[in-house]
């Protein structure tokens, strides 16, 4: 069992000045898994990624990546991993080609030797290989950064918020690439603030305020949703929200996209009761829409439990 885990994190604690960035985090990532760490800014994602990739030391706890204790042997793990930090961190005044060649030679290899490994990605930016990195679009920069992180054929890839601030088209292309890398057997850890990217991962950890709320497959997280959820569609969102807030059975009421979601304990609020209540409140022009909870609903529920607890 041990050797099937690519990453083992146990009771990780990291504190900056007065902020507890990580509060006893534990998780395992299996070999060949595409693992997502999902949470808002300040949840502790970056600290976790930096510790796992040996760039930061934890205050306490254990981190084992590919069988290496990264708090001690940082030199060995750095040869075997690819790492992409949160913001674009390549040389803006070097061209695509120069950046890739530089990183290839840092890892004692060449672009030619590894061309097959990154061909799929590199071919998309190759036509611009003479262009300076600073002049590339957001999506192209991400692809270049990924090429540089992959040029030495790492066994494990750490991607810290690779899709933040990138437009939707480039985001979907980027995930296609990750799926392809996963097929080749690479272990990939990726962090993101976008809840909708959870469904693209094999397993996800939902993170908030230095804690892990839940770790599981996206499907299991949503089926484990412990409440009943109803969506209401209306044009009078503000009035609807105000009046639902006064409904006793509703544990949570929040806008969700074009709808309003009403969360209640299972069996406590039927559609009939809701309809009756809203009619009594004098609400018009609304309808109840069938929805299944998605990761974001789960995240909100888990956060709410945590605050209550």
């Amino acid at each position, binding site marked *: 069992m041990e050797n099937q885990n690519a990453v083992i994190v146990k009771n990780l604690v990291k504190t900056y000045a007065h902020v507890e960035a990580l509060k006893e985090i534990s998780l395992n990532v299996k070999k060949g898994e595409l693992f997502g760490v999902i949470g808002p800014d300040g949840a502790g994602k970056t600290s976790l990624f*930096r510790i796992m*990739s*040996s*760039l*930061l*030391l934890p205050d306490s706890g254990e981190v084992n990546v590919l069988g290496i204790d990264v708090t001690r042997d*940082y*030199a060995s793990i*750095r*040869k075997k*991993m690819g*790492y*992409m*930090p*949160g*913001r*674009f*961190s*390549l*040389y*803006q*005044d*070097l061209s695509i080609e*120069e950046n890739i*060649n*530089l*990183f290839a*030679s*840092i*890892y*004692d290899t060449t672009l030619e030797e590894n061309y097959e490994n990154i061909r799929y990605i590199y071919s998309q930016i190759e036509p611009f290989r003479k262009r300076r990195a600073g002049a590339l679009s957001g999506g192209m920069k991400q692809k270049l950064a990924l090429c*540089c992180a992959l040029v030495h054929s790492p066994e494990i890839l750490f991607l810290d918020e690779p899709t933040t601030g990138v437009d939707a088209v480039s985001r979907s292309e980027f995930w296609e690439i990750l799926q392809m890398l996963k097929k080749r057997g690479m272990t990939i850890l990726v962090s993101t603030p976008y809840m909708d990217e959870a469904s693209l991962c094999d397993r996800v950890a939902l993170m908030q305020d230095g804690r892990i709320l839940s770790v599981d497959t996206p499907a299991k997280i949503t089926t484990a949703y412990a409440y009943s959820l109803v969506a209401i569609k209306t044009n009078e969102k503000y009035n609807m929200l105000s009046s639902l807030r006064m409904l006793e059975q509703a544990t949570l009421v929040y806008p969700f996209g074009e709808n309003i979601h009403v969360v209640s304990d299972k069996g406590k609020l039927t559609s009939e009761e809701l309809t009756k209540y809203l009619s009594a409140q004098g609400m018009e022009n609304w309808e109840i829409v069938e929805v299944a909870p998605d990761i974001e609903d789960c995240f909100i529920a888990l956060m709410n439990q945590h605050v209550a607890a």
Partner: protein
Amino acid sequence: MKRLTSLIRKEFYHIFRDKRTLLILFGMPVVQILLFGYAITNEIKDAHIAILDQSHDEVSRRLADKLVASGYFLPDGQAESIDDVEQLFREGRIKMAVVVEPDFADKLQHEGKASVQLLADATDPNMANTLVNYATAIIQNFQLELNQPGQPPILVGAEVRLQYNPSLKGVFLFVPGLITILLMLVSAMMTSISIAREKETGTMEVLLASPMNPGQVIIAKVVPYFSLAFLDAVVVLLLGRYVFGVPIMGSVPLLLAEIMLFIIMALSLGILISTVAQTQQTALLLSLMGLMLPTILLSGFIFPIENMPLPLQIISHIIPARWFIVIEKAIMLKGVGIAYFWKETLILIGFTVFFIGMSIKKFNVRLG
């Protein structure tokens, strides 16, 4: 090795692709030496002085004429007594007063020596120093004229200070100072900014995540700036030599070797700064406040150390540039060898070892 060369190549790309860096590296030395050479020299012309001749004999009058004839000085105001001189100083009309003691010719003839007092307005210590030096040189010259072969020597008392710069040219003194500042700027400041830039843009994070040895990162940073700083020093020396005629009296290889030593010292200082500074702005501020200002103000380049108040004189001991300027002047203007400045050289080596040691201690293989 291939790693290192490709990192060094990358460093050169950064330098040659950034216009501002290029301007500082190559525009600055030329502009500065021309500025200092032509405009901001301490050379004087028509400085207002007063001559208080308490002797009124033929010799004293000849001395006064000689001072005026030099073209450097312009007598202004009538001074009949020391009080008058004082008054003229207060009114700001004169920068220096030459006071010839009573019975000047008489004393020279019978005692073989007489003295001339030079009073200078020390609110501008630089100017005062230069004026006194000029005047002393002229008096010394005058003394030579008075001495006749076969007769007992005659001595006109006045302190002589400009023995190493007999032609009284300010630019001679500026070239060593300028080289010092440029080396400090290119080596310490540019290196620290360049390393801080990698931290700021996050590229350092990516380099740290690679199997790159931190030592290699630093060496790759240092090599280009070492060569460029050296090139700058040579440019200034050549400009000084061929535009302003500043000689190098001593050994050129020795001078270049000392320059290299100073560059290495400055580079290690730059690296030390960059281990503390997380952003380019901090690196720039630290270099400017911590390095450039002390180098300019306390090294003896502009303000003579002996004129400083005691606390500043003590502080000047920890300014590496102070020692380097002594070495440069010794080689370039005095033409002496290592025997005369091995102590200063050792001090520079000491600084270098200290800064490198501190940098190694402070350098982090992780982030923060």
